[in-house]
């Protein structure tokens, strides 16, 4: 932690509104700066000369913060965060807000998640409007389309978000998207970019999906083999960088090319599939979730049965986003890294 503070500017610097020197170039504020996407995006922004300053906001400081980055420790889930954020945005002269304060994996602490994701987004956006920020980039996920038997093979951005609202993991993120839409409506001249990423896969990212695929025995639904889609972590970060660099309002699916059947995914990962009859799967998952033996609550079971694959054509045509890795390559990249980690674990454990 000591080395951290030498890296970054003093975190509890008293705020003097207007006193901060107006740096040339854009001032980008990031919430959820310590998240996987946030930390990596800061690294990219640090290197970009067009970016004057990066304002990193999170409950804990990101490790990637460099010279350009000012770190503020604000917890979005706290009631007073709104005013504090507005103050920070105004003082730093932020022009762009990248809102990444979302959890990557479901957690049993649903009340806190609601405060962070749904209410926290509201706080951040209200503060942004007060501070006159005109550009908002919001992180969303294609998982929010929901896995339904009636889904077409490729879901476009026009498709409604139909993930189960009973699951706070989905409901709060859908609410956050609605919040962003409201921001776009009420703020004249605002550029709101919503990036719905597919499951982010790669050597360093960690989420419930990577945990699921790191199990020795991977539960699947007997007789079902849905097609899955991934986006490589590098591509996902590049998409956010692209959205920061350019003004592209709208919603975009950020996905890798190609799809993989779940069975192939498990084979490529070198795991063993454990088929479970689907009528009892939800009950088993519920029990496993309560005992914290499985990665996700029962509302994720449909994703092992039905399709939830998004169409990346709009991001390609309108945004100019070209994923460098296909779904398969992203998965293989994760698998090779995971394999090394497995070996390392064996070495360390004797």
């Amino acid at each position, binding site marked *: 932690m000591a080395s951290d503070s030498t890296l970054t500017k003093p975190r509890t610097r008293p705020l003097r509104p207007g006193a901060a020197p107006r740096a040339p170039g854009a001032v980008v504020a990031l919430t959820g700066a310590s998240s996987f996407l946030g930390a990596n995006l800061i*690294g990219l922004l640090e290197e970009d000369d067009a970016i004057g300053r990066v304002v990193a906001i999170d409950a804990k400081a990101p490790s990637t913060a460099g010279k350009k980055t000012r770190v503020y420790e604000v917890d979005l889930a706290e009631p007073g965060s709104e005013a504090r954020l507005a103050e920070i945005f105004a003082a730093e002269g932020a022009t762009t807000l990248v809102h990444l304060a979302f959890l990557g994996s479901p957690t049993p602490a649903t009340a806190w998640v609601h405060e962070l994701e749904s209410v926290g987004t509201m706080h951040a956006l209200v503060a942004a409007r007060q501070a006159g920020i005109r550009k908002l980039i919001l992180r969303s996920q294609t998982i929010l389309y929901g896995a339904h*038997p*009636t889904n*077409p*093979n*490729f879901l*476009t951005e026009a498709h409604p978000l139909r993930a189960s609202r009973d699951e706070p993991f989905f409901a709060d993120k859908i609410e956050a998207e609605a919040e962003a839409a409201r921001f776009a409506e009420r703020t004249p001249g605002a550029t709101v970019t919503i990036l719905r990423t597919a499951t982010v896969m790669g*050597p360093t990212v960690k989420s419930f999906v990577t945990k699921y695929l790191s199990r020795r025995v991977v539960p699947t*639904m*007997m*007789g*079902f*083999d849905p*097609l899955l889609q991934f986006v*490589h972590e*590098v*591509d996902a970060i*590049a998409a956010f960088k692209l959205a920061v660099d350019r003004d592209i309002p709208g919603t975009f699916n950020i996905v890798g090319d*190609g*799809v*993989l*059947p779940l*069975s*192939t995914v498990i*084979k*490529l*990962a*070198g795991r063993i599939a454990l088929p479970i009859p*689907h009528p009892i799967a939800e009950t088993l998952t519920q029990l496993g979730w309560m005992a914290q033996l499985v990665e996700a609550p029962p509302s994720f079971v449909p994703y092992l*049965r*039905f*399709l939830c694959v998004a169409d990346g054509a709009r991001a390609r045509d309108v945004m100019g986003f070209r994923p*460098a*890795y296909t779904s*398969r*390559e992203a998965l*293989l*990249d994760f*698998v*090779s*890294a995971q*394999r*090394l980690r*497995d*070996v390392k674990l*064996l*070495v360390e454990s004797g």
Partner: protein
Amino acid sequence: MSAKKKTPVAATAKSKAKPKPKPKAAPAKVEAVVETKKKKSIRPRAPARPPEPEAEAEAEHEHEHEHEHEHEHEHEHANEHDDANVAEEIRALEERLDRLIVEAGGKGEEEAPPSRSLSPSSRDGGDEQGTVFDTARELLSTDFYLRRWGRLGMRNRSEEVDDFGYDPVYDTRVRPVFDFLFRRWFRVVCDGIDRVPSTGRCLLVANHSGTVPYDGVMLKMAMLREHPSKRDVRWLAEDFVFHFPFLGSFTNRIGAVRACQENAERLLRQESLVAVFPEGTKGIGKLFRDRYKLQRFGRGGFVKLALRTRTPIVPVAIVGGEETNPLLFRLEAFSKLLGVPYVPITATFPALGPLGLLPAPTKWHIRFGEPISTEEYSAEAEGDELLVGRLSERVRTSIQGMLDETLSKRESVFFG
């Protein structure tokens, strides 16, 4: 002189060996390690695209060549201390890694990979008990399964599916079964198949029949076996077929796609040949007494689709499918529980169990009608309800006409 000569070679050998240690015992196993290392060095700045499959194979060849070179170097400079040390170190590391990988399966205390320890014991043992024991041990070792079904084994098998889940390799593997059904079981006769264009988008509209619908697959086989272009047919399957356990993923891998406008439109825009059954579930669920009476054609979705994408429609009549599993009664009591629209009661099902769903060896005729062009209509014609209704009816009468004609000529259900 020797010192002059040696140092650069040693340096190159070192530099070559250090960044990417070449696997010796098991190249495939350490390959992953090398890959990630390469990628990691690139990652922070520019995301480099990993090599294409072919390129990868070439790279592997190169690795092998480099291998040989390294061996040569080692022989030449056997007295070189540094060189030998590095090589030794790498070998030791690789051996350790190999052992770890083998042990990773949970076989804790095995000293060497079972394949190596196997051969001597079976040679000097010789008795039957020893061989059985060894075979059992090999079967029990995780290495055996890793080689066969693990990631390494699977990597070489193509498991590529296209965007809609069609797996060409899997399809070729199961094709003999459908070939048998097409040629020997149903003895399908095609008529006017050359009316289907060889290239470009096209919509085949057919009647749907049989409690277990084989007509999609048979249409696909007809195009593959009888049509000069051997075009692939993508047919749209009802939801309940598509999401039925096992059956759904199976039909998906051999080319079926869930029936919905978005999917059909996407396929047609890729210039594919798409088969639709507008009768849908009502077509499959026709009772035996209603056979070959076309059911309602929905809201004419397929016509709207054709108009929107400017696709010619080829009406298709399939005769023979209705008698494969004559449906006597539809039981709707457990339908919700089982995820099907109804439970079929045929002469043999459920009396004979799953065997009762095997199709009767009826003689099939597939007739292709005159294509109906949609070129002359504008893109807005889709909204013209009257036109949609008229075209839909035209296709329907065309199919019904062909059905009636074929049926009147048919003398026997089983022999045509």
